[in-house]
C-alpha cells in the first residue's frame, strides 16, 4: 500500500441548515484501493460524498486530495483534477441521448481524440449502451441507467471515483454485473474507488478496506475482510 493517501478527510463537519449531518468524519483512501463506506440510512454516507465533491459545504475540518486541500475548490473544478462521482439514484440527464450523456461526462476535456477513445472504451465496457446510443437516457431501464451513470463518470478519466449506492433498486443479477465492472475498472485502469453502500455484504466483498458510519461519525474502520466477519457488523448490517 502506498504511503500517501490520495484522498483524506480530516475531522470533517457538515450540515444542512441546522441539522448536523457529519460530526467529524476522518478517513483515508490510498491510490488503487477500493474503500467501502457502510452504514444505516441517515448515517451521512451520501453527505460524505457530496461534501468531498463540494456540493455540501464543509463547516469544519479539511479534505485533502493528492496532498492539497480541496475544501474551498468549486465543485465544477474537481472533475478536472480527477475526482468524479456517480451520484445516488444515478441522476443521468433523462432527456439527453445516451451519447450526449457520455459527452457531458467529458465536458471539461478538449482532447477530441482522447474523448473518442474513451467513448469506445465505455461502449466496450457496456455494450448495451452502444445499442442505445441514440436513445434518451430517461428511457433506459434502471440497470442501464446505472451503467450510463458509471460510463458518464468514467468519461472524465477519474483518478478517484466516488460511487453512491450503485446497487440501489436493481435486480441482484444486474447488481452483480455492476460490481464486476467496478472491479474491472479498479483492476484495469487502476482507478481508486470510494464506494458508499447500503448493501454491506456486497460492498465489503468488493472492497479492500471499509469504514462504518453512524450518525455522522466513523465508528469502525478495518480491512473489509475483518469487518465482514465482525460479529457486531454482521448483526447490525447483515441481519444476523
Amino acid at each position, binding site marked *: 500500500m502506498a504511503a500517501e493517501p490520495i484522498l483524506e478527510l480530516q475531522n470533517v463537519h457538515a450540515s444542512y441548515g441546522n441539522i448536523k449531518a457529519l460530526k467529524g468524519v476522518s478517513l483515508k483512501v490510498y491510490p488503487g484501493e477500493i474503500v467501502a463506506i457502510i452504514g444505516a440510512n441517515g448515517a451521512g454516507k451520501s453527505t460524505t460524498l457530496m461534501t468531498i465533491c463540494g456540493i455540501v459545504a464543509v463547516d469544519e475540518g479539511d479534505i485533502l486530495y493528492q496532498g492539497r486541500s480541496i475544501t474551498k475548490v468549486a465543485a*465544477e473544478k474537481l472533475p478536472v483534477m480527477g475526482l468524479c462521482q456517480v451520484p445516488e439514484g444515478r441522476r443521468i440527464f433523462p432527456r439527453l441521448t445516451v451519447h450526449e450523456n457520455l459527452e457531458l461526462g467529458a465536458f471539461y476535456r478538449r482532447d477530441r481524440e482522447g474523448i473518442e477513445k474513451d467513448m469506445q472504451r465505455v461502449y466496450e465496457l457496456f455494450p448495451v449502451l452502444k445499442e442505445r446510443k*441514440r*436513445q434518451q437516457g430517461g*428511457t433506459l431501464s434502471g440497470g442501464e441507467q446505472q451503467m450510463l451513470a458509471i460510463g458518464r463518470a468514467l468519461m472524465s478519466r477519474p483518478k478517484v471515483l466516488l460511487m453512491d449506492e450503485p446497487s440501489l433498486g436493481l435486480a441482484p443479477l444486474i447488481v452483480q454485473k455492476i460490481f464486476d465492472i467496478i472491479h474491472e475498472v479498479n483492476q484495469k485502469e487502476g482507478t481508486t474507488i470510494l464506494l458508499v453502500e447500503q448493501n454491506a455484504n456486497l460492498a465489503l466483498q468488493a472492497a479492500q478496506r471499509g469504514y462504518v458510519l453512524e450518525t455522522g461519525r466513523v465508528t469502525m474502520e478495518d480491512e473489509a475482510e475483518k469487518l465482514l466477519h465482525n460479529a457486531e457488523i454482521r448483526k447490525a448490517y447483515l441481519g444476523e
Partner: protein
Amino acid sequence: MIREFKKIGKIYVFGMLWLLGLIWPMVGIHKDGSLSFGRAFTIWSYIVVGTFACLLLYLLNKSGYLDKATKPMGRVRDDLVAKARAVPVWIWTLVALAAALIYPLFTARYAHDVAIQVLIYISLGLGLNIVVGLAGLLDLGYIAFYGVGAYTYALLSVHYGMSFWLCLPVAAVLASVAGCLIGYPTLRMRGDYLAIVTLGFGEIVRLILNNWMSLTNGPNGILGIKPPGIYVPSFEGGFHFEHIYLKKLYFLYYIALAIAVVTIVAVRRLNFSRIGRAWESIREDETAAELMGVNTFMLKLLAYAMGAVFAGLAGAFFAARMRFVSPESFTFLESAMVLSMVVLGGMGSIPGIILGCAALIVLPEVFREFELYRMLVFGAAMTVMMIFRPAGLIPAKRVGTRSEEKEG
C-alpha cells in the same frame, strides 16, 4: 358505440349543466338587477349543439363507422409526410426563406405590419427559449430586456441622434448587461423562487421606465425616434451618398427579417454547441451537471445574457419601427405572451417556436371580429394544447422510446 357513449355521456351532461351555470350569471344578470334566461340559453344551446356534433364525430370515429373516409385520408397524409421527409431540410429552409423574401411583394401594408410583429416575436421567443427551453430557468420578466433594448435606441436616437445600425449592438450589449445584473443575484435560486423573483425584476424595470420622468418621460413615452437610415448612391449634382430614412413598411420588414434570421441562426448554433449541451444538462439535473464539471453559475448567467441579447435587438428594432416607446409595451402580459408562444410552439424547438409566434400573432388578427372573446379562446386553446400536445405544436426533436426491461 352505445357503450362508448354511456361512458362519456354522463360526464358530458354534467359538464354542459355546469357550463350553463357559468354562462347564465355572466349574461343573464343585468345591471338594473333584472334577470333574463333567454340569451344565456341561446348561447348555451349553440355550444351544446356544437360540442355534441364534435362528440358524435369522435364516437363514430372511435367505433369505426368512419373508417371508410378516414383510412384513405390517413394514407394520403402519410404519403405527403413521407414525400416531405424525402426532401432535405435545407431545401425547406430555402423555400421558407424565399417565401419570406418575396412576401412583401404580394401583400399589402396591413399584412406587412402583422408580419413584422411576428418577426419581432420570433426573436423574442427564440431568445427566451435559450433561458427557458435550454437552461430550464423559468423567466417571467423577460420583457424587461426588450424594454431595455427599446429605450436604449429611443434615448440614443432622440438625444444624440445616433443611427439605428450603431445602436443595434449597443442595445444588445446593454440588454445583456441588464441580464447579468438581474441574473447575478437571482440565479442562486431554483425553480419557482426564480420565477417569482424574475417576475419582480420585470416589474421593477417597467416601474423605473414609468417613473424616471427626467430620463424616460414616464408614462408619456418617448416620441420622435428616427427610423433606420441607409446611404444610397446618388448621381444628382455629382456622385455622392445620400442618407435616407427607411420609413416604408416593407423596408422595415426586411430589417425585421434579417434580425429574425440572425437570431434563428445564432440560436441554432448555440443549441448544438458545447454550451448548449451544458445548458441542457443544467435543465435536466443541476447537481449532476455540477458533478460533471459544468460551471453551472456562469453558464446560467450566460444563458440569461444571451437571451437578453436577442430581446435587446428586437427591442431596438421595435423602437425604430414604432418611432415611439412607452412603458405600456413592456408589461407582464407581454412576458406571459412570449412565454406562451414558446410553450405553445414547443420548448427547445426552433420551428415550433416560429410557428407558435405566428399562431399567437396571426390568429387574433384573423379573428378580429371575436376580439372580445380573444382571451377566452386563448385560454381554452392553451388548455386543450397542454392536454393533447404537452410538448408543443412541433416538439423538440429528441428521439427515444422506452427500452424493454432486459435485465436478468
